[in-house]
């Protein structure tokens, strides 16, 4: 059942569940953050509309910098603004920022410890038709290995809004990962969000779960659908939403592993270096259990619709179910 304490969207299993891209939630959050704090500034590299920074730019034109198609400049200028007390949010596609400008982020933002918020939209395979050049499948790995930075991958638009508001107040560097495509709204305004805290979204009605499914990003909806079907098949699972990849909620992950003794991780990212790797780093040092990884396995994407691509690269509901069954067959 859905965790009743979290006030998740009751329509989550309906066919007509609302579909909103997470970038839209970011746009709303940035506008609100801008109204609260006049030090919030926005920078964009010629993708203001598609990264949903346009409502902020229109409302606060004096606090918006259009840098042109120049992602290295985007983040280094943001570092300079932060050095003078501003809280810059700089947006582009994840493939270009942090894809193209990683060293600038490292030196001028994380090493320099300036509170710049890097907003990477159009992450993952669900970018769709634009194809492999534009599908960032490496950005979590690129960002989470840097000291000083928080890495947040919201599961839906509402969580993206909350994460944006929360990151505006941390006083430290952050990366927020967003998607282009529509994704199901899983949470509600009442659902808690806290940086560094993971939450169990699905749990057995009674008894202990046999497999813990840890998900980051929009695939949470497919994981919940999988968990519900598995329950009907007699397999009890827990589904954890791990939006905060860094800091990581090690305590909650270890506790889930102790209960389930088996873990499946699910992410729209390369399996190498992503959220699943982060979870594995926690578990191998504390409570090693068999794990299966759902994600992109050492491949690049291609053109197609988001749904086609998620199925093709084995990240859909049935692939999650298969991974759960596979991990159950493994000896502990």
């Amino acid at each position, binding site marked *: 059942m859905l965790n009743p304490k979290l006030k998740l969207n009751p329509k989550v299993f309906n066919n007509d569940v609302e579909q909103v891209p997470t970038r839209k939630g970011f746009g709303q959050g940035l506008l609100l953050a801008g109204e609260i704090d006049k030090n919030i*500034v926005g920078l964009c590299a010629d993708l203001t509309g598609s990264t949903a920074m346009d409502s902020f730019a229109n409302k606060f034109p004096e606090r918006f910098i259009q*840098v*042109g198609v120049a992602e290295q400049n985007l983040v*280094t*200028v943001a570092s*300079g603004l932060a*050095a*003078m007390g501003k809280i810059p949010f700089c947006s582009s596609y994840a493939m270009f920022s942090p894809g193209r400008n990683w060293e*600038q982020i490292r030196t001028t933002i994380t090493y*320099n410890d300036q509170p710049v918020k890097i907003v990477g939209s159009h992450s993952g395979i669900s970018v769709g038709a634009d194809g492999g050049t534009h599908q960032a499948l490496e950005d979590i790995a690129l960002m989470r290995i840097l000291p000083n930075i928080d890495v947040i991958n919201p599961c839906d638009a509402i969580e993206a809004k909350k994460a944006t508001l929360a990151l505006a107040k941390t006083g430290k560097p952050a990366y927020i990962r967003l998607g282009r495509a529509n994704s199901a709204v899983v949470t509600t305004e009442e659902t808690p969000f806290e940086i560094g805290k993971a939450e169990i979204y699905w749990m057995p009605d009674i008894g202990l779960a046999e497999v813990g499914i840890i998900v980051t990003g929009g695939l949470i909806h497919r994981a919940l659908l999988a968990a519900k079907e598995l329950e009907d098949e007699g397999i009890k699972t827990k589904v954890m939403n791990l939006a905060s990849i860094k800091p990581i909620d090690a305590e909650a992950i270890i506790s889930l592993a102790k209960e389930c003794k088996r873990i499946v991780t699910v992410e729209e990212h390369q399996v190498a270096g992503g959220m699943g790797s982060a979870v594995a780093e926690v578990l191998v040092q504390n409570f090693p259990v068999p794990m299966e990884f759902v994600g992109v396995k050492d491949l690049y994407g291609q053109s197609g619709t988001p749904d086609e691509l998620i199925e093709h690269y084995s990240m859909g509901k049935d692939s999650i179910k298969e991974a759960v069954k596979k991990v159950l067959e493994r000896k502990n």
Partner: protein
Amino acid sequence: MSFLSEEKILELSKKANDIRVSIIEMLVEAKSGHTAGPLGMADIFALFYFHVLKHDPKNPTWEDRDRVVLSNGHICPVLYSTMAHAGYFPVEELKTLRKLGARLQGHPHREYLPYVDTSSGPLGSGLSQAVGMALADRMDGKDKDRFIYCFMSDGEMDEGNTWEAMMLAGKYKLRNVIAIIDRNNIQIEGVTEDIMPLEPLHAKWKSFNWHVLEVSGHDFRYLNEVIEEAQTIFEKPTVIIAHTIPGKGVKEFERNYKWHGITPSKEEGEMAFKELRNARF
């Protein structure tokens, strides 16, 4: 900032000489680092820290101070040496350069030495940070109250990031950005015009909508006049192309690109001290 008297010029010449002596001392002790660039920029740093800059070494985080971005972080021996002589920290501390736990990292790190405004080393990012600082000043209505000085190398003009920053500063007409290029014509592997020709450098900056000034990097009076002009230009950012002699002050090191990234041995250091001590002003 004002007219330079003969006495002031003499004082600055002596300061620059002291700064050079300390640079050699720290490099001999550290046994690694860069020699040519720091020596070449000693006059300019002396002029800035003992005449031009609005700053207070006893109150390094003074909110209204001018900002200094050292984009080519590898010349930090001149920054550290000048800051020590200006009173930011004890001159004795210079000998800790590049040692474990030292505040004086091989390239400047703001976390270790909070008196610097940015961490730097990887080339090509400093001008963008200066541009960001100036944009913040514009938003806060402070762009007439202070200057953002960005010291950069000619070699780092090879970096695309630099040109992105130049375009943005031109777009927003950032009046309080003043970039100073150490035009010493050398980089690690040779002379700039062989590695990647920069000329016509003046015309390139001009075409990016900057006010461009060229000056000898070792003539205090002329340098000072040019900086005053840069501060007066109201409608656009200014770049000062300062023609410097790499290794300046020690004949053996001057104009030789091989001294870009190596340090003097103890014997070479003694030779350098002798020459610097005998300098006439």
